[in-house]
């Protein structure tokens, strides 16, 4: 809802400054992390070259969780202080977070095939990641399910807050469920303690994923602001003012 009572120009000016920095950081750190991860770091003595998937998989999994929290915080600000930019930030975060979560699932699956001999097992961690993906998808479905965009944003903000109460409950239940049925799980990842040659690329990639998130989110908010303007221009034109 960007009428004249919530002028986004200040935000846009701020975004103008931040955005190029984020782009540079993402590309730079990402390239460095990938280089270190794919070429400079040693292959694992147990897992071989496939361990390199870790440099994408682990940060993606972290970001999947982080984005959900960020989305909930933004939604709360939007609901309580009725700040339209917070609403837009929540809306812009959802597809990014869903993307990271999906990436973690796919890379995990690809990793699982050589490691465990199967694409998927119903392990607690994997399963709660899958449920998290559904929470994202539900949010995105709800936000797009209304004819009136403002209505969609408010409804989905309530949903994401309900979801945030439930995420720990779901996580806890899934842990409990899995340990009940399958006490000694095959895929407890207590591999070799991570040494510096693996930690560095991992850290770089994690930071790069974070800056990527901020970068893309800013772009998405901008697009959303522009779309709102276009919509209201068209409405004004139609109603003749």
């Amino acid at each position, binding site marked *: 809802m960007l009428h004249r009572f919530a002028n986004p120009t200040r935000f846009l000016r701020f975004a103008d400054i931040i955005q190029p920095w984020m782009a540079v950081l993402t590309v730079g750190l990402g390239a460095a992390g990938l280089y270190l991860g794919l070429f400079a770091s040693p292959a694992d003595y147990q897992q071989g070259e496939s361990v390199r998937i870790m440099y994408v998989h682990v940060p993606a999994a972290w970001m999947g969780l982080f984005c959900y929290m960020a989305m909930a915080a933004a939604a709360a600000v939007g609901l309580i202080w009725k700040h339209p930019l917070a609403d837009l930030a929540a809306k812009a975060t959802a597809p990014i977070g869903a993307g990271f979560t999906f990436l973690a699932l796919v890379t995990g699956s690809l990793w699982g095939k050589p490691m465990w001999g199967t694409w998927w097992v119903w392990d607690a961690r994997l399963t709660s990641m899958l449920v998290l993906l559904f929470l994202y998808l539900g949010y995105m479905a709800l936000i797009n399910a209304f*004819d*009136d965009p403002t209505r969609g944003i408010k409804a989905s903000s309530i949903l994401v807050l309900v979801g945030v109460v439930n995420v720990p409950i779901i996580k806890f239940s899934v842990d409990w469920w899995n340990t009940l049925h399958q006490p000694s799980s095959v895929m407890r990842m207590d591999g070799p303690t991570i040494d510096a040659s693996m930690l560095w690329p991992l850290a770089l990639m994690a930071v790069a994923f974070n800056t990527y998130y901020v970068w893309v989110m800013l772009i998405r908010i901008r697009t959303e602001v522009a779309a709102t303007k276009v919509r209201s221009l*068209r*409405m004004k034109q*139609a*109603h*003749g003012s």
Partner: protein
Amino acid sequence: MGEFTGNNLTCVRSERIVFSGLDFTLAGGGALVLVGSNGSGKSSLLRLMAGLLHPASGVIAFDGAETSEDPEAHSGRLHYVGHLDAVKPVLSVSENVAFWASLRSGGGNVPQALSALGINHLADVPGRFLSAGQKRRVNLARIVAAPAPLWLLDEPTTALDKQTIAGLERTIADHRGSGGMVVISTHSDLALDNFQTLDLGHFSAGRTGNP
């Protein structure tokens, strides 16, 4: 143009006779205004005429041929406007009108219909953004877009502002001028010339629902 007649019609709704022994005759260019208090059966009669309801007894005929013999032909020559406006929220005003016109032979003239109802400036606005009266105008534009000889209008002025009502009166006059027929139920007075009135109160089986 033909002649639209009803003979000795009885309408039963939820096991109760709403009216019986009702006749009407409408010639090309004619107008029939249905009046009567709430619950006297105006909407029911219009639905009978459209073929949505079937009479418990009696015959409705167009040009002498019973309409129930060939319901699709009858549908092809009538336009019905009920209480609901059939405006899809995600389609724009012109897409809404164009779809209904496309189901009729000929396809119709959408832009002209929109300007007849004074909504050409809303052509690209999605249906969800319309107020009650604007939706009603889209519904009326639909019947202007593709011509049909018989118009059945159930309280068409609901939610319309006065200016638009005047426009509607002109549109109806044009339609009749080119030989069309119109049946209208209304509680407010529409300015039509040379019309017949049918008071449903006379045919209702018993009380009419007034204090």
